[in-house]
């Protein structure tokens, strides 16, 4: 199902937060895929991805309890553009005669900003996202395993605010199984 190497296969790899992040990424992949297929009427079903979206919401709430600062999805590009900015400004300052002149200095730093913006538009930024199908029964077994493992860890945590994350994860599990119900037998009243 996934091809991001062995680390992604092992549901116990890493700390709880990154395990939850990986589960959330899988949920989001399935939601987006189902939503887009609903848009183009390839698989018209607006209920199941809405319910799985709830699971995403609960997972985010649990992750937020572990780490209130949201990690950027992609840390490479912010770092790279900051580095571009620094390097560009530095080169300009080294080249000019009088780097401490106020006008030159301001110009060099602003030019660095603009060049860093250009660097963001270079090709090759495309990142491979895995595609998960919402009607795949294996997806639900996998998600349930992952979330339950994290919930077990959270439940036995000595810190009370992290034990509360287990409640969020329980709700996420409820929504995952509600989605599975919807997929497998159309439990929604909307299945007309």
């Amino acid at each position, binding site marked *: 199902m996934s091809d991001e190497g062995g680390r992604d296969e092992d549901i116990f790899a890493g700390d709880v937060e990154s395990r939850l992040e990986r589960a959330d990424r899988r949920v989001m*992949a399935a*939601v*987006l*895929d189902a*939503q*887009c*297929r*609903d*848009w*183009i009427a*390839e698989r018209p079903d*607006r*209920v199941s*991805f*809405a*319910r799985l*979206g*709830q699971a995403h919401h*609960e997972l985010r709430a649990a992750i937020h309890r572990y780490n209130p600062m949201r990690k950027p999805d992609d840390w490479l590009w912010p770092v790279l553009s900051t580095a571009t900015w620094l390097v560009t*400004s530095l080169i300009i*300052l080294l080249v000019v005669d*009088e*780097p*401490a*002149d*106020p*006008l030159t*200095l*301001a*110009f060099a*730093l*602003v030019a660095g*900003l*603009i060049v860093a*913006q250009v660097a*963001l538009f270079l090709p090759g930024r495309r990142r491979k*996202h895995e*595609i998960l199908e919402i009607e795949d029964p294996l997806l639900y077994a996998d998600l349930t395993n992952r979330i339950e493992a994290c919930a077990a860890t959270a439940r036995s945590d000595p810190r009370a605010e992290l034990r509360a994350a287990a409640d969020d994860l329980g*709700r996420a599990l*409820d*929504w995952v*199984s*509600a989605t*599975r*119900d919807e997929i497998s*037998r*159309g*439990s*929604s*009243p*909307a*299945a*007309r």
Partner: protein
Amino acid sequence: MSRRQLCGDLNGVRGLVAHGLARFEKIGAGSADFWVVSALIRVRGLDSMLVAAAGGLSSWSRTLISAAIAFPLLWSVAWTAHALGFAPAWVIVTTVLALGVAMPGLLWVTGSASRAFDRYRMGAPPGRRVAFGAGELNGEGAVSPGDGPAPGDTVVEGDLDEVAAALTRARVRLVSAALRQVDPERWNAAHLARLARQDRVLSRIADADLLLCQAIDFLELHAAEQAALRRNGSEQREPARSGMAPLRSRPGRPPQVSPERVGPAQNGPTQNGADRNGPTQNGADRNGADRNGADRNGADRNGADRSGTERRSV
């Protein structure tokens, strides 16, 4: 493809959502039902998401704006440091630090400029507008302030169906607005999913669409639950199991899907199936009655009353 068309589309969606929300606020504002409250929260947040879906400023304009602000700022900082008699190296260090300090401020300025630009492009919120025409709402006409049940009135189920119908129409328009942003030759799931991650407009439309679908789903679950309650109440006088086990004991929580519903068909799929089909048919019947029945208000109100007492006795 054009920006103006996108704004027009989104404003149409906003009109429909505002129409649904106006009805919904009248009906469901005092309700304690989990599904109704959750759906209401989602619909309330929709308008701002739809405004944000107009796209804001591109990252290029943001960069240029922040460059235009940063240049005089850095120049004055460097000039001041120079005038204070700092060594050249310290002038450079001070200026770089000033840029680092000013960066959050610059991000805030560009962010609020982008939001203000969105608001300017999209116009006023359509809440008080009666502009969304009667034709668009299937001849039901726009809502007038005196419409809907009086304050002390009980909840009329048919009206929630109407809200769900308005939201469904809004969703149809939202999806067509999203698809109009994409080249028809590339209407495939992989390309759309990639755009929904990266494109500013499409990702916001996808978020808004998710909220809208959740609200519609909750309203349908609520209707099914009410129908099942009413039916079971008249038959056996005991609480019903509707499509998903409702949470009367724990308001504010998502469904506790009980194991027997998840496990492979232990408590009789036929019974479940009947349970499931019931609400749908009831809903369809009620919808039919909605269109032409004036007396169904009384009947429905009775039904709602009954389910209300049923609920209290649970």
